[in-house]
């Protein structure tokens, strides 16, 4: 466990394992190591929060990406196995389970999305299951995986315990949730253009919500409309991503606080919160999916 005080403990648990670019002449001041001045631009793991910040945009959260990708691959493999076995006959155990999920998603999509698209249903499936799996990592006791990782890195790779940041819940990383929600926004724009044309898309931005029959007033209203609608367009993905992030971050934070307070007793102490958190996990995955469907549905429908 990194850090002795609860403050340091919590701070360490909220940091991501970051791999990124440090510029030439950067002074590295890592705990437990000599201070080094870089002679050339270097791609490396950040050894503390300051370095991760100084890397700027040219950095990856390796833990978030690995867990989200790994969980996504597991999910796809399960789906693929079922898809290969799927027949019109009587389904068996696991196939039945996946088919239930798929039928559930299908119902949601049919209820909310009235256009025709081959993309929306699988998109919703991936969002729901993937976000659910990523959220589910929250239920693993907070120290188990990071402590294992820390032990491996300090024992075999010569890292210090402070460097071994590791967060296993990808959805507590705003990069992950906002990335997904902005992908959804791009799809919304794509669907709008596909349904209404480029002119129609600009029309939805410029000619609503204030409408006028007089052409002069219409032109006068365009800047106001543009401002409002652009904010509205951007508010959708931001709220979508931040809602998921906020809920999961808060949940994770409670687990970390409980762990900081109770030490090993967290396995008992965090149990009620974990039970309650199962609800949050499922609900947030569901909300993310439903809102995606609703936004896409609004894109293809006339107001």
């Amino acid at each position, binding site marked *: 466990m990194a850090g002795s005080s609860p403050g340091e403990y919590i701070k360490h648990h909220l940091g991501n394992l970051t791999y990124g670019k440090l510029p030439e002449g950067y002074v590295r001041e890592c705990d437990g190591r000599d201070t080094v001045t870089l002679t050339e631009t270097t791609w490396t793991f950040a050894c503390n929060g300051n370095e991760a910040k100084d890397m700027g945009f040219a950095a990856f959260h390796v833990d978030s990406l690995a867990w989200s990708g790994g969980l*996504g691959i597991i999910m796809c493999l399960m789906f*693929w196995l079922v*898809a290969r076995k799927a027949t019109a006959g009587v389904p068996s155990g696991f196939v039945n389970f996946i088919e239930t999920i798929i039928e559930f998603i299908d119902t949601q999509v049919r209820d909310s999305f009235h256009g025709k698209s081959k993309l929306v249903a699988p998109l919703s*499936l991936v969002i729901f299951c993937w976000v659910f799996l990523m959220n589910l990592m929250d239920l693993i006791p907070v120290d188990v995986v990071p402590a294992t990782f820390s032990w491996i890195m300090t024992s075999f790779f010569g890292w210090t315990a402070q460097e071994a940041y590791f967060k296993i819940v990808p959805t507590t990383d705003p*990069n992950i949730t906002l*990335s997904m929600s*902005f*992908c959804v926004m791009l799809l919304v724009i794509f669907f709008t253009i596909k349904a209404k044309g480029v002119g129609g898309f600009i029309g939805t931005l410029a000619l609503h919500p204030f409408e006028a029959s007089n052409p002069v007033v219409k032109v006068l209203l365009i800047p106001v409309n543009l401002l409002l609608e652009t904010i509205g367009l951007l508010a959708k993905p931001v709220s979508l991503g931040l809602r998921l992030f906020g809920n999961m971050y808060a949940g994770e934070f409670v687990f970390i606080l409980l762990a900081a307070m109770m030490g090993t007793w967290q396995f008992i102490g965090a149990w009620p919160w974990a039970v309650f958190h199962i609800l949050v996990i499922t609900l947030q995955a569901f909300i993310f999916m439903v809102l995606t469907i609703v936004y896409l549905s609004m894109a293809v429908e006339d107001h």
Partner: protein
Amino acid sequence: MNMNATLIGQAIWFALFVFFCMKFVWPPISRALDERKQKIAEGLSAADRAERDLELAQEKATANLKEAKEKAAEIIDQANRRANQIVEEAKDAARTEGERLVAKAHSEIDQEVNQAREQLRKEVAALALSGAEKVLAGEVNQDAHKQMLEQLAAEL
């Protein structure tokens, strides 16, 4: 809370998974589910049809049974009638045969009576003749009285 290239990495993962599911997961499973729905619908309608068929078959069987019963009754009736007829015929035949036998017996008896009467008459005639012969002895000429005697015999 640093915003960085993780955004792009996650977007790539997202696109990959959505693409994979769109190509290889959703279509086959969705198709299988649709097929199953159709199969179940067909099965249900087949069950309905079978039920109707069963009803029809039962109706037909009842009708057949009824017909067979009627036929059997008719046949039994016919047989009874025929049996009666045969009995009647047999009775008739027996009666005629009996009558014939009785008639025959009667005629035989008559014949024998006649024969006996004839013989008796002849014997009586002969007896009378011999008696008369003895009584009359030489007085009576056999030849002269023969005709009278025969007349006598015939009257007996």
